């Protein structure tokens, strides 16, 4: 991790034209021109979000537009509010006693933070993948079938089988598990488990997938698998990812937002943030001067 960060900072300090060199992991797919992704339609409009845990304010007036068909990376030091903002998007903060979120989060013209909105409805449209892989202690098949069953998306076993296969294929896990769908999901390796829970999220066809440091518990090879997968997934979904690894943000995201002490300091195309940030603080952070 520290090594990768160093690599990123060296690239930037050397004044390389673009962080292409660190994008070039062997498994990642050809890079789409970031500018093309940024001009894509806006999927989520975050408007003036303030978040509180009890008395403590965690987010201060955050405004941000998240594009569709792109990976948006939230970066920043621990405690900067990036995970809090991510959890605002699918109302996960509702489950924390004392947590309060003010402001609007517009998706398809609807304020998902509105009091009249059922958080459960929001979460079926916006999936989430956590830091530590968390398959349920049931079979691989049942893990994937959980969402479709809960929301009664299928009427027949054949249809469910199809969803399970399609989701596992999209998560690039099908070939590894197709012969043992009845085996426990917890029997898989860490990287496979993370792809399993990505497949589980995909099974309800969400428009947005949130990922909270999805690779921080994985080894470099498993990380490379997930990163390659993200590039594939973003063709059909909007992905928002919190990451501690700036090299990872540079490799997989098209848009980067930098947070510090609960404020959004700067956001923009990833190439621009990593090569010519407009704000001094962003520059200091990505060059490793603090955080």
């Amino acid at each position, binding site marked *: 991790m520290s090594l990768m960060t160093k690599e990123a900072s060296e690239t930037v300090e050397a004044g390389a034209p673009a962080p292409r060199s660190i994008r070039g992991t062997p498994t990642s797919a050809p890079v789409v021109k970031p500018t093309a992704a940024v001009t894509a339609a806006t999927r989520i409009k975050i408007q003036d979000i303030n978040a509180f845990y009890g008395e403590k304010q965690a987010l201060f007036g955050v405004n941000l537009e998240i594009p569709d068909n792109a990976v948006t990376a939230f970066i920043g030091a621990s405690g900067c509010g990036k995970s809090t903002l991510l959890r605002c998007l699918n109302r996960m903060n509702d489950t924390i006693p004392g947590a309060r979120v003010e402001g609007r989060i517009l998706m398809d013209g609807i304020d998902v933070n509105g009091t009249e909105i059922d958080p459960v409805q929001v979460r079926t449209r916006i999936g989430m993948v956590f830091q530590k892989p968390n398959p349920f202690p049931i079979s691989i098949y049942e893990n994937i079938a959980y969402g479709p069953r*809960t929301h009664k998306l299928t009427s027949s076993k054949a249809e469910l089988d199809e969803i399970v296969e399609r989701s596992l294929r999209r998560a690039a896990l099908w070939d590894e598990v197709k012969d043992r769908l009845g085996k426990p999901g917890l029997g898989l390796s860490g990287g496979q488990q993370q792809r399993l829970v990505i497949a589980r999220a995909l099974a309800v066809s969400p428009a947005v997938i949130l990922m909270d440091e999805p690779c921080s518990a994985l080894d470099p090879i498993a990380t490379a698998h997930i990163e390659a997968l993200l590039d594939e997934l973003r063709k059909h979904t909007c992905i928002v990812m919190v990451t501690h690894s700036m090299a990872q943000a540079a490799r997989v995201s098209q848009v980067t937002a930098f947070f510090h002490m609960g404020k959004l300091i700067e956001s923009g195309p990833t190439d621009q943030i990593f090569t010519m940030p407009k704000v001094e603080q962003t520059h200091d952070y990505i060059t490793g001067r603090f955080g």
Partner: protein
Amino acid sequence: MKQLSPASRARYFRRQLVDRVMSGLCMVAAGVGLVLLGLILWMLFSNGIGGLKLSVFTNSMAQPGAEGGLANAIVGSLIQVGLGATIGAPLGMMVGVYLSEVGKESKFASVVRFVNDILLSAPSVLIGLFVYQIAVAPMGGFSGFAGALSLALIAMPIVARTTEDILRLVPQAYRDGAVALGSRENEVVRKVVLPAAFSGILTGVLLAVARIAGETAPLLFTSLGNTNWSTDLTQPMASLPIAIYRYAGSPYPEWVSLAWTGAMLITVGVLVLNILSRFSHAAVAGKSQG
């Protein structure tokens, strides 16, 4: 060790000595426990095995001199323990689910938890008196049902406590995962948390059954005991602990012998339940290791 100063050498040897003394004391304590348990079992089996014949299981309790057995007491115990667990275990589970998944740290949950802990350590004779007041007196007589009710009241707090403890061991990540997939609170509990904790909860129920199987005091005031064959829940009902209680103090050698055999049967039953609960718990541990 050569390079150590005299002071640190002294410290080193002192620590080594303390370590050995403490380990030794622990081993002695464990040994005392094992020897006592061994003696109890030996005494039970050497006195009880002689009286173990088919008539114990086929005949009801009888007058001294006649060929008596414990059939009515065994069946009575099975009925009362079975019914008691059937009433007490689900109630206890619901309390446990409430404490762990719904009430959590709320004021009301803390009160419920506190009351449950008191109930857990209440003398069982008190439970018997309570059931006497609320069931035996109004119904106009001792009954198997009242006995089962008192056993249920003993089983409930045990199951509530173990259920809460086990549910708290279920990783929060499972709940988060289920919530993030758009599950409602009751779905999270029903579809993810309870299945994950199933074998642990089963262990708690088995231990509660083992506990109530040997209870004597609450049955004295509720089902009373019965020397005749009866499976009528509205009538006094025999049970193994009460049969032992009555027979062990009697002057007739055949009754005393039956008391030993009955005690051995209960102990074997409890032992089997404990072994089963260990298996079901090992299944949980194995699963979470994945």
